[in-house]
């Protein structure tokens, strides 16, 4: 810990070669480090999981500690789509449009039983899991999950963000995966 910063922790620098006045490492690791600690989430909150998210953003749990203090309410500027709550079938196209408007690289966190599987709403009007219309990176179980669980999901997203290859989004596998959802 640096002197004078109090309890503020600075992200670990990646492995590299260091000398007087220079530090050499791979670009991928630096980009991963920067992205990991500056995720802009877009909260797509439709019900009680959204309330837990508000607690997560509040002073007590404080998601800002993980570099996500800046919520983005425009999908075009967001990195992470956090889907929290029951998604009715009528909401499905809206959610899909929000996802399509996000710029690459983008990640999706499905918070709670409803977003992940439909939850208790096994009924004609509710989408039985958002992964039927958009790809999901991390699922957070719970009905609703506690803020600690949401933070755990964010940390898992951070691990994905940090380790992701810069070329992954250009790969044929990634495009094929999106095509299975009908997304260009």
């Amino acid at each position, binding site marked *: 810990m640096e002197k004078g910063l109090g309890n503020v922790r600075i992200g670990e620098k990646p492995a590299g070669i260091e000398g007087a006045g220079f530090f050499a490492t791979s670009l991928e690791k630096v980009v991963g480090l920067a992205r990991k600690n500056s995720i802009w989430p877009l909260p797509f909150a439709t019900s009680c999981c959204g309330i837990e998210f508000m607690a997560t953003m509040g002073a007590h749990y404080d998601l800002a500690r993980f570099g996500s203090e800046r919520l983005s309410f425009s999908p075009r500027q967001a990195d992470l789509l956090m889907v929290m709550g029951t998604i009715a*079938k*009528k909401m499905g196209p809206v959610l899909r449009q929000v996802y399509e408007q996000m710029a690459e690289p983008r990640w999706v966190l499905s918070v709670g039983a409803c977003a992940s599987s*439909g939850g208790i709403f*096994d*009924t*004609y*009007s*509710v989408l*039985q899991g958002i992964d039927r219309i958009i790809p999901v990176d991390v699922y957070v179980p719970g009905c609703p999950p506690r803020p600690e669980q949401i933070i755990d999901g964010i940390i898992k997203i951070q691990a994905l963000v940090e380790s992701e290859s810069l070329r992954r989004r250009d790969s044929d596998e990634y495009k094929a995966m999106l095509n299975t959802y009908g997304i260009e």
Partner: protein
Amino acid sequence: MEVAQQDKILSVIGEKYGDQVLHAGMLFDFFTVTLKKDKIVDIIRALYDHPDMKFQYLTSLCGIHYPELEQIAVAYQLHNLYTNTRLRLKIYLPVASPTVPTLTSVFASANWMERETYDFYGVIFEGHPNLKRILNVDEMIIFPMRKEYPLEDQIRQDKNDTMFGR
């Protein structure tokens, strides 16, 4: 509701539409008049205009499916806000062709309620200005509150017999 009040309502309906009344009485603590479907809009209009009745507020309009009768009922709940009197009118339609004239000529608020009743029960309100689905997705091909359709989403995979059963 007091019997005198009930008789008064029935006498007002009976002035012109006595032959339309099939049944009248307290049903679940609520005065309910079951009517033939033909003159329902005229009767509601008469109850709206009559100086002693003034049922000028439509609390709700909804459908009920009776699969054993092969009928769909439409229930109208009216409210007199001057005397705080409530009245339920009920008509029965055959499931095969559930059509009834629209009430939007009397109550503008019937517009969305009739759309909802169409959405969930398939009741056709003739003369409705915009009879299309209101709550469910437009692609839906069933009327989900009819009891022949299962409540559950049939594509759900995690509820097979090895897990919890249905």
